[in-house]
């Protein structure tokens, strides 16, 4: 593991996560981290904030059984970029991190527009990029025919379970 990955793995070890180092040259990021319980995402964001990360973006990907919320974080001082993935809970929501990383505010609103996922605790979930009349459109939700399972999309060759 690279020293940055090792540090981060250590810092996040208090949470129930699945930490995978990835090949930067092939993937474009250094670690692929799955947060198993969406309630932990705030704590993870708090740790990343302490570790000098900035938020690249927040988005989602519609898969079965749960839509995956994706976060990209990176650092200004060293070349270190990570992806964090976390399944939305049964209410199709995840906790907001917009009070920890203020830049996540607009990205979470955009994700609400495109996927219909709500971010619990977000101060303003009104339509943003889409019009208010398209509030329930969720254009990036797949049709049943096109929908794939989370393992088909995110499953790793070396995954043990």
């Amino acid at each position, binding site marked *: 593991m690279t020293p940055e990955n090792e540090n981060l793995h250590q810092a996040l070890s208090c949470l129930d996560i699945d930490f995978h180092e990835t090949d930067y040259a*092939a993937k474009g990021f250094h670690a692929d981290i799955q947060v198993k319980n969406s309630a932990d995402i705030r704590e993870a964001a708090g740790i990343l904030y302490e570790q000098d990360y900035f938020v*690249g*973006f927040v988005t989602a990907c519609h898969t079965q059984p749960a839509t995956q919320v994706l976060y990209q974080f990176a650092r*200004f001082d060293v070349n270190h970029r990570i992806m964090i993935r976390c399944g939305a809970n049964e209410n199709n929501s995840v906790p907001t991190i917009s009070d920890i990383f*203020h830049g996540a505010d*607009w990205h979470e609103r955009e994700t609400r527009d495109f996927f219909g996922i709500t971010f619990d605790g977000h101060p303003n979930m009104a339509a943003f*990029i889409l019009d208010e009349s398209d509030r329930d459109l969720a254009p*990036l939700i797949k049709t049943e025919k096109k929908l*794939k399972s989370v393992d088909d*999309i995110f499953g790793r060759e070396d995954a043990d379970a």
Partner: protein
Amino acid sequence: MPESPTFEHMISPDPDAESIGQHRFYLNLGPQHPSTHGVLRIVLEMDGEYVIDPQPDLGFGHRMHEKMGESRSWTQFFANVGRMDYVNAIGFNHGYAALIERAAGIEVPRRAEYIRVITAELNRVASHLLWLGAFILDLGAFTPILYTFDDREDILDILEDITGSRLTYSYFRVGGVMKDIDDTFIERTRAFIRRLRERFSMYETLVNGNAILHKRMQGISVISPEMARRYGVTGAVLRASGIDYDVRKNAPYSVYPEFDFEVPVGKNGDCMDRYLVKYQEMEQSLRIIEQALDNLPDGDVRAKTKRKIKLPAGMTSFSVETARGELTYLLIGDGTDVPYRLKIRVPSYSNLSTMPELCAGMLLSDLVTTMGSFDLVIPEIDR
């Protein structure tokens, strides 16, 4: 002589004054306002001439590029990328081509990489020249934009010859570029570099040293390094705050590590530093172009690739430095030649999201200065 009117109530919102709140009103800036440089609406809660709460309203130019990315093959999507940030289309070409190459494991010939860097940097200079003129125009000086447009026209002519377009370029291909450059291109580019360097001394005398310009920009909308990190601010806006982060240096791609160039950094994080950082970046781009032209390798400009490339399942990310900051594409493949999901992270989206915090309490005219210093391209934000 009649007594001249006083405007005290408009210029001093004393928090203890009884009049507070009496002059509150809402103002719509845009979506059709010249200073927003596109269809951006900002709902401003005002008290006199002071902005209390600015809330940008996006989406007037929204085309759902990310949905289009999922409904056509990656080659068909190529025409879309230059239409997001149309001022720096080649930057968006570069990121997308490199993303597919990374996902599919395609090697790009060195000559093609050099041509990519040359055209990307030319396009960056064109974008910066447009910003330079338009920003100063925002501040009330009309003349400079006529000069910067004249300079930019030269670049558009040069690029038109090899790309076939003047604005929304689709010049890159997966595995290289569409067409090789010729001697005319090299000659004209060298002539342009000489010309722009001569113009720099004029811009520096006439514009950069102007006292009014300094008064309009110094100390306005200061972004601290901590705030920049909280919002994910990138590009010249970030570097003006003293953080030395440029994707070309920090996460090098293409052949950028082979060139000797500097990353201009400010220290105050105000509009003045943002202006100076962006201004100095043009010279650095010229240095890169010069070195690339001097060392241009021979060979092919496009690798042989299969017609239909299947992208592996899972995530692939690629970040490049566009004229406005860090652009990241995230591709999620499912083993077919159509992306399952394509996320496009554009720099100005995160940069502009600082506005409600950054501009609360400032004069309306300073908000216009701030927007100008961000170098916004609205179709890029709206996608």
